[in-house]
């Protein structure tokens, strides 16, 4: 019995419960809904929720526990010489599940294992049938209990709202818990990495060359895991990007918000925001195929040697990508400056630019700083453009014409392809990810604090 059918079944039962609950409420009302505490639809929803939710919850718990319970049962029946050795046990369990799936004709295994495999198949069947029976009874029980509780003065409306509130709490819990899960998985892998490479070498090392031997018989370099060149590259590209994005974004925000006529604004603003909708991979090949060669050629004309994958190309294009981010955020912040302040300034005989420079901009400055910080954290975390345009060479340089590499680029290259999962090389990606996460998190928190503080001032 597949999950889809079970879910469909639960949905169907809930729908039926809805109809029953509603009908009973209508019957109780004697034709006048005002005799009821709540509307009939609330009673229907109430029974539907009581029928469907417990069954759903049970279904998920069942699926979560089924595997480990069944496995424990199988293991308890295996002979001790298999269970005592973890390696053997895992092989045997593999074989057992293959046999259970009727997919093991070519396997040559002990008769106990074959037997266990057949037993596993039976257990699965039993479990599935039991699941259907239990689900059905839970759903019907929920329906019956809630149906019996329907009286004219039962507060179905309030009850439904309470249940819905718990549902919403559940949804936000999912979002928060998955963030926590990601952070912890990063953290544990990073700790694993730090048990191989000292954190001091990682945080302050000036050399990055993660090529280590994959097998013991390979000849390869020792591997150096100093993240400074990567962060220097990231910061260089981010800096170039902000040099482009901040002035352009800010001035376009000022123009859009303060000078542009409403008709121009009506089409120019969405047009600017289209920039934000361009997939970053498109920016990536724009940078790699158009901007970088152009920079190299114009560099050659001027007698400069520009590498074909340069920090400048990646930074410029990333800056363009971030323009709408800066401009729409700062536009929001500046349009929140109350009209009364503008009037006050105009009333004193200030010109438009004086008003913007001396009143609106300072008043909006904290918010604008917040917007820029958010943009910075976006630039630091940006991957696709730098993967395509910045290069792989971990040069520690401040020259934007050289190729540099970034944290995100290295994470991508470390994890792409066949890798041994517990080598320092692979694990270093998690350490990099953790540091990157901490930096952007810090920036975001700081930026949001700044923005918030500013918001309070006019509320």
């Amino acid at each position, binding site marked *: 019995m597949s999950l889809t059918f079970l879910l469909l079944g639960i949905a169907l039962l809930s729908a039926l419960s809805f109809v029953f609950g509603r009908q009973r409420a209508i019957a109780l009302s004697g034709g006048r809904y005002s005799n009821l505490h709540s509307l009939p639809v609330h009673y229907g929803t109430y029974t539907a929720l009581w029928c469907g939710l417990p069954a759903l919850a049970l279904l998920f718990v069942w699926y979560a526990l089924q595997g480990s319970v069944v496995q424990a049962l199988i293991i308890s029946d295996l002979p001790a010489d298999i269970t005592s050795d973890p390696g053997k046990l895992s092989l045997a369990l593999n074989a057992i599940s293959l046999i259970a799936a009727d997919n093991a004709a070519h396997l040559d295994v002990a008769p106990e294992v074959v037997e266990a495999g057949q037993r596993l198949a039976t257990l699965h069947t039993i479990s599935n049938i039991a699941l259907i029976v239990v689900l059905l009874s839970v759903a019907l029980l929920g329906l019956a209990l809630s149906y019996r509780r329907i009286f004219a003065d039962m507060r179905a409306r309030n009850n439904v709202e309470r249940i819905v509130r718990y549902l919403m709490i559940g949804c936000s819990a999912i979002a928060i818990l998955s963030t926590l899960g990601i952070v912890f998985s990063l953290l544990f892998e990073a700790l694993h990495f730090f048990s191989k490479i000292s954190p001091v070498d990682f945080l302050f090392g000036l050399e990055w060359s993660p090529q280590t031997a994959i097998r013991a018989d390979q000849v390869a370099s020792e591997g150096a895991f100093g993240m400074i060149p990567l962060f220097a590259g990231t910061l260089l590209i981010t800096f170039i990007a902000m040099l482009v994005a901040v002035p352009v974004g800010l001035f376009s925000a000022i123009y859009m918000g303060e000078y542009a006529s409403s008709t121009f604004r009506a089409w120019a603003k969405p047009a600017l925001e289209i920039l934000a909708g361009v997939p970053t991979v498109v920016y990536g090949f724009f940078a790699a195929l158009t901007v970088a060669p152009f920079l190299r050629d114009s560099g050659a004309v001027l007698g400069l040697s520009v590498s074909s994958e340069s920090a400048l190309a990646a930074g410029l294009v990333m800056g363009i990508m971030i323009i709408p981010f800066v401009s729409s955020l700062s536009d929001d912040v500046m349009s929140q400056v109350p009209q009364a302040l503008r009037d006050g300034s105009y009333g004193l005989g200030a010109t438009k630019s004086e008003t913007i420079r001396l009143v609106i901009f300072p008043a909006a400055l904290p918010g604008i700083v917040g917007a820029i910080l958010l943009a910075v954290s976006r630039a630091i975390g940006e991957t696709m453009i730098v993967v395509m345009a910045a290069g792989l060479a971990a040069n520690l340089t401040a020259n934007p014409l050289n190729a540099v590499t970034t944290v995100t680029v290295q994470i991508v290259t470390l994890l792409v392809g066949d890798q041994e999962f517990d080598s320092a090389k692979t694990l270093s990606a998690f350490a990099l990810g953790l540091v990157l996460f901490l930096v952007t998190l810090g920036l975001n928190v700081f930026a949001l604090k700044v923005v918030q503080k500013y918001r309070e*001032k006019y509320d």
Partner: protein
Amino acid sequence: MAVVTADAMTNASQTRGKSKMAARDLNLFYSDNQALYDVNLDVVEREVTALIGPSGCGKSTFLRCLNRMNDTIDGVTINGKVTLDDRDIYDKSIDVVQLRARIGMVFQKPNPFPKSIFDNVAYGPRIHGLVNSRDELDEIVMTSLEKAGLLKEVKDRLSAPATGLSGGQQQRLCIARAVAVSPEVILMDEPCSALDPIATAKVEELIDELRSNYTIVIVTHSMQQAARVSQRTAFFHLGKLVEVGETDQIFTNPRDERTKGYITGRFG
């Protein structure tokens, strides 16, 4: 004088003082809606002129015509004439920025800039280059605060943020800010509507003092306030100037039925 025409009032005012500002056949449209109809009004120098009338009657709109604040609103068209010292302020040769420096404005809600108290008052003098040295600036700020009756309360915390002042203090700061530019006329748009009675009394007192140096036009919803602070009162109704005259006369012996109805509280 059974029917009061604008001309008649102009003549009457000439006996008392010079007309500082005047509106002639002023019509104003917000897009297609007409908000003012043929308004003719004189503002006499060194007097307080109160504009009263029910909400939406156009008195604030008219006030904002006097320093061209309506320019900042999209879709406003104006015809007719507004003069300051007999020069049309809507003439192309007029620099609206300089005009607003000559005609200051105080708004309904206190709107100090989110800067220090000092910087708020210094704002106008700085942008108009009225001072050449820090000492001169200090001088202007101090005298302006003094004129606005605020100096005693704030002199120890001039660098504190203006937004930390109470509502009444903020409004007097806005008056000081307007005064610092040495305007000839000060327009006040319901300056006390956001203030408590004590702060209101202080601002009213201040208006009375300012009258000796400035020409003041004040929009107010409170007829008591108009009676207390103004020498002349103009009553607006549905975008038309119904009646204008000496405050005493308007409140004791209005000539128009509508004015009478409004001041006796029968509508409005």
